[in-house]
């Protein structure tokens, strides 16, 4: 299955590895940041809703 890369195996594999790593890193960073922001926003919205409900009762 693995193609014969000849003398340049290290070069080709290094370039591909670095690229895939960089793309995966970018995607992972984006996803982690999105999740963190989304969670913080849900919490803040819940807090605001609670405060509003408490205010309405009082």
């Amino acid at each position: 299955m693995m193609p014969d890369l000849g003398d340049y195996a290290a070069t080709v594999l290094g370039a591909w590895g670095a690229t895939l790593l960089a793309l995966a890193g970018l995607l992972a960073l984006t996803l982690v940041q999105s999740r963190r922001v989304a969670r913080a926003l849900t919490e803040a919205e819940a807090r605001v809703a609670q405060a509003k409900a408490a205010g309405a009762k009082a």
Partner: protein
Amino acid sequence: MRLSRRVLPWIAALAGLSLGIGLIWGFFFTPDDYKQGSTVKILFIHVPAAMMAINAWIMMLVTSLIWVIRRHHVSALAARAAAPAGLVFTLIALVTGALWGQPMWNTWWEWDPRLTSFLILLLFYLGYIALWSAIEDPETAADLTGILCVVGSVFAVMSRYAVKFWNQGLHQDSTILKVGEKDPLDVAYYVPLVICLVGFVLFFILIVLLRTRMLIRARRLIALEARERLG
């Protein structure tokens, strides 16, 4: 926001699919070049990354202009969202280029116009991202980075011509648009390369959508917290 949520899984699937097909095809099922041997396989990541590095900046320029002229908030955030992706593409193009240049030109780095322009482009991305993160007020940040992006584009183009003037190139010209001319790219490379290109474009769109959604949420969060403090 609603539209992007519905489109998002499709884009993600398509990006994954075309990247998968293009990369696997490029890596496993293409012949070696008679001169360059197996290093020609770097083509499938080097060229799309380089093209997207420039396209990302162009997209930032367009969205910055839309923000400056029409004051469309999402547009400014989309420009901000695209910058890290462009930075990563630029880095990929430079690193794979260095790795490719080592066996082919017998040097990791050469002060060739194309290579130098990409290094300068990298500096522009760094400055743009640094300015965004330095300014607290979101509107001010959007305005100032917009101005920087427009002015920077002009200077980036001038730098391109300046370094062309300054040194003759070692890097070959682009072969993508040479269909039908002499010395075209062989079909065996062309088809998987185009699929890889599509994959990179979709991947870029995916990242921009995800990051823009994140930035919109972040801004809503800031607004909510400010309102809370006011009580």
